[in-house]
């Protein structure tokens, strides 16, 4: 099964979890997702997700100037985002347990 399709469904959750752990700018979030094992995550998908979560009020953003390069846009989680993270985390736990059980039951 193509894991990029699976990833699409949970990218919001993964991004929220990473930002909840510590504020980060776009590429830093990509790096942390990859370090966490999501090797196939696309940069643009992550940036787009960050922007969408920001527009929905789940994230806040602030700009940090850099001496050597262009400014960085950092994202942090908002209370709304934390609620969303909690709900989605529970949903995911429930969903993955269900699917795991199904797969175990289907074993010959």
């Amino acid at each position, binding site marked *: 099964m193509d894991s990029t399709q699976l990833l699409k469904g949970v*990218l919001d959750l993964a991004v929220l979890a990473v930002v909840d752990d510590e504020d980060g*700018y776009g590429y830093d979030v990509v790096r942390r997702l990859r370090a966490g094992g999501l090797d196939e995550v696309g940069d643009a*998908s992550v*940036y*787009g*997700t960050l922007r969408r979560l920001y527009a929905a009020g789940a994230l806040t953003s602030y700009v940090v100037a850099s001496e050597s390069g*262009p400014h*960085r846009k950092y994202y942090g989680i908002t209370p709304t985002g934390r609620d969303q993270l909690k709900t989605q985390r529970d949903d995911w736990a429930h969903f993955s347990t269900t699917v795991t059980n199904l797969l175990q039951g289907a074993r010959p």
Partner: protein
Amino acid sequence: MNTAPVVRPEVEQFVAAVRERFADLDPDEREDLLDGLEADMSDLADERGPEALGDPDAYAAELRAAAGLPPAGRGRRPVAERVEGWLDGARRRWDAVALGLPGDPWGLARSLRPVWWVLRAWVALQVVDLLFGSGARNFGLSPVPSLLGWGLPLLVVAVLVSVQMGRGKWWPGRGDRGAAARVLLLAMNVAAIAAVPVTVTEVLTPAKVAAWGMDEWTHPVSDVDPGVIAYDGRQVCTLRVVDEQGRRVEGLRVLDATSGELLPLNNPSC
């Protein structure tokens, strides 16, 4: 020290290409998507090399989809898109060659751009002067184009316009330029480059008098013919009217203010 942030040219160009593909979005939405992208792409290019930037088309589409925005509209004409695709491709190939050269000559060339902005303004006015001004009257060109006396103020205006275009402030150089503006800009720059040698040669060529040869010659006054002009004890056979730089001025006559008669410029009896 307060220096402008340094962004790799590939990153700058990539972000500009992505920006182009968001032309249909409203400005706030677009800036929100693009804000911070230069820093992220710089990190990416630093870590995985400029090749990792990839295709701006695919990148922009992925970013839009993930941000929950509709795919790019069909607002732009296919011809313009094809031209832009061709220009982008040419630019990428050029950059691939230029950035691969040792010693960063392209970086040096880029930092000399203001010099070119001034030079092209000067060349443009010289070409106008050559075709319609002094050049058309065979006076030759001067370092500051004469343009009927308006040369200096016009040069100031031309330099201002050229620099503003170069800085991306004025059309057709503006940052959000479309295909037509890019083609026009390219054509004007190529024309200016092509005009540099002829302009410089014309300006450096001294007065036309030298080219035509100093054809005034004199006779001793002892055999003065009463029908010719005499000056300083010698007779003058041919008169030439020249300007301060010694360039020949055509179409003028010399009037003898004493008699009120025109003097002959060539005296066949000499």
